[in-house]
């Protein structure tokens, strides 16, 4: 059997492929993005970047209802967007097997919260599987499709950043042949969730959960440790590997299906041990259920409930000695910054200088909140910023909207910014919205979306016309400008703020990473420069203070020209060839 070194995300894609998945959908989101990118490299699978996670789940549902195996992947907060169909899919069940991958982000490496999506399995009432490494991610993905079909239910495959983005050795098998599945006629009693139908399906859901609780007994792994067997650890997922490494002496009950819980296996394990410790990342999801069985578990306190676990934290949770390290007084980790030449920079420099409040959104441009740009005041969820600005206007009157600007990226606007903009028009607002159109989903690694003219499989696609779309929503004041002239950006913002009607400014310039756009590098004439710091206020990583005065790193500079525009002494010029 062939072996390979795969990330968790690549392994999930491989597992789905081996299981004969036919349709796979997602909206990009760290740490889940590479699942669909990997799936797009296998032939015969119909993949798509959906507009958002709700649409992704709905497209996958249609495929499943009609008989095909379908997979949908998203980051943890994406499942909030898709929660509406999710809750009722637990009633309808599936046709072809359906696997929903939720990639959680404990520690918030690249997220706005660290919600524990294990609760979604319990909330919806669907089974959940949690792999502990890449190899198991591959096998569980395959088995999840079988489980889904056997129990007529969507299955939640829950992973975390440390599974998705860790590589390990996986065993490959030949993919299952993927013949076009027979189209299953859609039974209204199963799929039309009128109250009369849904009441019957609610009973089916309860009976299914009872059956799954018995099935869960087959999805555990009990391991004897090298010690005397008095202490037993109940754990799951990646954390299992930390426990195994930190405490090889302890007995472990590893739960592979973490909802529903295998009551009998847990009880038997508890009876054999005088002390039970539940080690889990984030909330006390397992702990509470184990305690509900009347089993006493060690009280670990609440300090472990935030942040990502690692071998050292787990060792401390188990009361083990940890190798103390001498913390060197050194520089703090470098924060992420906007790239040199980033087309978002000019907008945030202008907004900061105008002193307006900025209701922001999720993407690279959220970095506009950090100094020295410091030009963002809210960022909560995808699409939220547009509505925040309108809420402020509703609370404080139309004149307040002269001091507020909503900023949203192109991909985020198409994900969930259209409806709040329509809301502003419909409800008589005058709010100004800036769409930062860099022609890609930059933050997650430059994926296509409905505005780019290309699909995940590389095919050409119609590109939505943002200006026409905004006009169709009823916004009359729509203008499109380029990003690299500060005066143009400033004038556009001032004019839009003064209008007593909703305004949209589309700042349209492609992501600097996408075209590897590189003009002539600029340089600073140190004889003219007084080190006033005006150029530093742009927050460009190419501009640095040195012992010899200010300088521009020619390897980083893309020649975007912004620093020349802010230098009143004209000390910055294109470097002569």
């Amino acid at each position: 059997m062939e072996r390979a070194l795969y990330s968790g995300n690549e392994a999930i894609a491989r597992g789905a492929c081996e299981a004969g998945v036919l349709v796979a959908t997602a909206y990009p989101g760290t740490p889940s993005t590479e699942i669909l990118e990997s799936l797009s490299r296998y032939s015969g699978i119909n993949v798509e970047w959906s507009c958002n996670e709700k649409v992704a789940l709905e497209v996958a549902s249609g495929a499943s209802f009609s008989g095909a195996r379908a997979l949908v992947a998203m980051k943890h907060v994406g499942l909030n967007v898709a929660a509406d169909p999710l809750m009722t899919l637990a009633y309808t069940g599936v046709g072809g097997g359906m696997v929903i991958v939720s990639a959680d982000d404990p520690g918030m490496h690249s997220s706005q919260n660290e919600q524990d999506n294990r609760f979604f399995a319990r909330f919806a009432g669907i089974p959940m599987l949690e792999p502990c490494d890449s190899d198991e991610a591959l096998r569980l993905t395959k088995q999840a499709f079988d489980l889904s079909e056997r129990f007529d239910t969507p299955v939640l495959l829950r992973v975390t950043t440390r599974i998705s983005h860790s590589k390990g050795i996986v065993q490959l098998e030949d993919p299952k042949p993927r013949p076009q599945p027979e189209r299953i006629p859609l039974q209204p009693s199963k799929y039309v969730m009128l109250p009369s139908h849904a009441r019957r399906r609610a009973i089916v859901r309860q009976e299914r959960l009872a059956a799954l609780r018995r099935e869960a007994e087959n999805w555990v792994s009990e391991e004897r440790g090298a010690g005397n067997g008095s202490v037993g650890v109940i754990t799951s997922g990646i954390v299992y590997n930390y426990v195994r490494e930190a405490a090889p002496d302890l007995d472990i009950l590893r739960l592979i299906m973490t909802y529903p819980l295998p009551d009998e296996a847990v009880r038997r394990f508890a009876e054999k041990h005088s002390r039970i410790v539940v080690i889990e990342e984030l909330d006390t999801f397992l702990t509470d259920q184990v305690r509900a069985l009347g089993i006493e578990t060690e009280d670990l306190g609440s300090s472990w409930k935030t942040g990502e676990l690692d071998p050292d934290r787990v060792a401390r949770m188990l009361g083990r000695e940890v190798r103390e390290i001498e913390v060197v007084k050194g520089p703090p980790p470098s924060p992420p910054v906007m790239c040199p030449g980033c087309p978002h920079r000019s907008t945030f420099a202008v907004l900061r200088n105008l002193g307006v409040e900025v209701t922001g959104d999720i993407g690279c441009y959220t970095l506009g909140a950090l100094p020295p740009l410091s030009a963002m005041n809210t960022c909560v969820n995808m699409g939220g910023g547009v509505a925040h600005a309108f809420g402020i206007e509703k609370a404080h009157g139309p004149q307040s909207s002269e001091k507020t600007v909503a900023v949203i990226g192109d991909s985020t606007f198409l994900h969930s910014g259209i409806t709040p903009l329509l809301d502003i028009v419909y409800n008589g607002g005058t709010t100004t919205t800036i769409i930062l159109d860099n022609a890609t989903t930059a933050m997650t690694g430059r994926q296509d979306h409905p505005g780019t003219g290309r699909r995940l499989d590389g095919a050409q696609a119609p590109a939505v016309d943002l200006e026409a779309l905004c006009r169709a929503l009823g916004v009359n004041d729509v203008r499109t400008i380029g990003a690299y002239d500060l005066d143009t950006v400033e004038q556009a913002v001032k004019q839009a703020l003064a209008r007593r009607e909703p305004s949209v400014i589309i700042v349209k310039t492609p992501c600097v990473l996408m075209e590897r756009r590189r003009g002539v590098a600029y340089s600073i004439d140190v004889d003219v420069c007084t080190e006033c710091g005006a150029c530093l206020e742009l927050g460009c990583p190419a501009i640095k203070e040195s012992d010899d005065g200010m300088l521009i790193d020619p390897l980083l500079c893309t020649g975007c020209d912004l620093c020349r525009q802010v230098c009143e002494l004209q000390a910055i010029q294109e470097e002569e060839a």
Partner: protein
Amino acid sequence: MSDAETRNVLFAGLGGQGVLVVSGITALAAFRTGYDVKQSEVHGMAQRGGSVTSHVRFGRKVRSPLIPQGAADFLVAIHEKESTRCRSQIRPGGIVIDPSLPGAADELCNKWGNLYLLGILSGHLPFDREAWRQAIRSVVPQKFLELNLAAFDRGAASVSQSNGDIAS
């Protein structure tokens, strides 16, 4: 190196410096040599010029993809600042490979300077030479392959010239 022992290599640098490229090559080389291996890294926000670390662990059986604190056998730091920041993660007797090594600063003026540091690392690790070269070939774009291989070879040669194989 005894069979039961897991070896830990910590990679550090800034987003865009190729930390994930060199750690990926190392993990592949370990895999192709026949070790169990795990590699862990974080994408997303971390890539926007911020601090990036990647953990590679290999041995007979590797459990955690994360290196316990203070247990790195090797630190490969592409940036001086990141080298200082991660210094405390090295075990006593561990080896630092960073821009302060002779010749490294000059090599790091090139885009493939990270491969020079990787070459130095290769001199300390028990992987097959062919496994390294295959791994580099499968990760580095064809266009820059020769330049990268040459930088790797110069790094590897600098170890054998100075103090030979100091891997335990």
